[in-house]
């Protein structure tokens, strides 16, 4: 972390325990982590190490038991459910492994929706959505339903939706996990271009090749960070996207 630059995300002493049938599961055991604006960080680790729990806490989808989570200066660990929902509108774009698109909406509506939830009128929200779909190569799909798209196209649509509100932080949860290798590469290239354009991205993955797209890799074990490693293969320069 360079000195003088405020972290966009800070987690300090974060603990989270889930109640399981037989015994409580300590998913996070005093996690400390921070990200600078514009960073692309990949979180890796074995199943059950707590990386998905970490992502959920940053997104405000779950609450911490102990510790602090600060996103863009806002103490999200102390927020109510509705405050977290409003925080997500402003600061968070989520890309899920299985896309989680709204199947009853057209491609355009899926992308326009987050902006409308944030209070934008339909027309400007659709204008922004069209711009994003154009940039992500889905301009000719605006009136189609997500069900007719390929896996790669669906994930690109999910990324467009995640970018609709110009979020402070994009969270990606195994974004290539449901795609074939070609589709996965397509999505990673897209993330690299977003990153080049200054988008802060926090990605969780099992896959070393996918993590290599990030400029910092952190590994988790037993609910804590194991260490950080530099990206082995820096991505090629790409044209500005957003």
């Amino acid at each position, binding site marked *: 972390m360079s000195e003088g630059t405020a972290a966009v995300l800070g987690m300090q002493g974060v603990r989270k325990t889930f109640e399981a049938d037989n015994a409580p599961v300590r998913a996070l055991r005093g996690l400390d982590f921070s990200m600078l604006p514009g960073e692309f960080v990949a979180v890796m680790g074995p199943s059950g190490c707590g990386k998905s729990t970490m992502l*959920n806490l940053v*997104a405000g*989808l779950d609450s911490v038991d102990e510790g602090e989570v600060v996103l863009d200066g806002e103490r999200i660990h102390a927020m109510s459910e*509705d405050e977290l929902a409003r925080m997500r509108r402003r600061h968070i774009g989520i890309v*899920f492994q299985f896309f989680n698109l709204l199947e009853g*909406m057209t491609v355009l509506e899926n992308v326009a929706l*987050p902006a409308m939830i944030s209070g934008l009128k339909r027309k400007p929200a659709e204008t922004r959505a069209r711009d994003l779909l154009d940039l992500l190569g889905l301009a000719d799909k605006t009136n189609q339903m997500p069900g007719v798209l390929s896996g790669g196209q669906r994930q690109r649509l999910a990324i467009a939706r995640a970018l609709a509100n110009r979020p402070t932080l994009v969270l990606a949860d195994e974004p290539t996990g449901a795609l074939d290798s070609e589709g996965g590469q397509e999505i990673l290239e897209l993330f690299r271009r977003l990153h080049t354009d200054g988008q802060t991205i926090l990605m969780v993955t099992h896959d070393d090749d996918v993590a290599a797209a990030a400029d910092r890799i952190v590994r988790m074990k037993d609910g804590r960070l194991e260490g950080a490693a530099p990206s082995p293969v820096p991505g090629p320069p790409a044209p500005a996207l957003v």
Partner: protein
Amino acid sequence: MGAVRLVLRSQLRTHHWPLLGLTLLVAMAGSVTLAAAAGARRTASSFERFAAATLARDAAIQLDLPGAVATGVGGRGRPRPYPVPARGPGLAEPDLDMAVIASPDGWGRDIDRGQQALAADHPIDLSSYSHPRLPGNLANIDRTRGIVVSLGASFAVLGAIAVGHALVVAGRRQRRDAGVLRALGFLRRQVRAMFAWHSATAAAVAVVAGLPIGVAAGRWVWRAIVGDLGLIDDPTVPAVALAAIGPLSLAVAVGLSWIPGRQASRLSPSVLRAE
């Protein structure tokens, strides 16, 4: 509101057919029942008036009082005089005054009030009474009114249960969508509003489409019944009851949406990771 409207439209695109079909069925069944019940009441009531007048005239004939002005009181015991111009063959002389009170059901209860009402209009002594009774088949139909109304109420209750069940099932199907919406920043109350609007819209469409169809079908059924009995149909539409169905249906639909809406709004968006 724009976002809720957009989501509502998408929900109606994907999840509305079972709900809409059920609600439509309920509206139609309720209307059929209502129209049949109203038809039964109106026909029985008409017969009472007819019977009162006829028996009054018959009494006048039996008493050898041609030209009597017979007045009947009918209509389920209400002390309401029905002036009957009983001037058929053999009743040609108008100078004899006579009043006959005929009341199918209200004889014992309302005779005094009926007498007073008649006496006020016609300054005469009451000279004869008769006790008209509905013919058996009509009396049976009249008695079925309670059954028909009970049937309608049962339809309404069963329909409400079915719609409630459909909403809960739809809510389960919409569980993932609700999680997505929460992840995108929907507030809990917006999720609840989505369910309420979904339910209310389905009910509104069902009422608008179902009521006219139901009333028409009910009228058709009733016309067929009275035709078989050789009666003259006396059509009526229970306007007040039908007018109440709209707001009542909306209120029930919104009320029923509360449970699945509440369940969905409490769902943690983290459920999306498991799907």
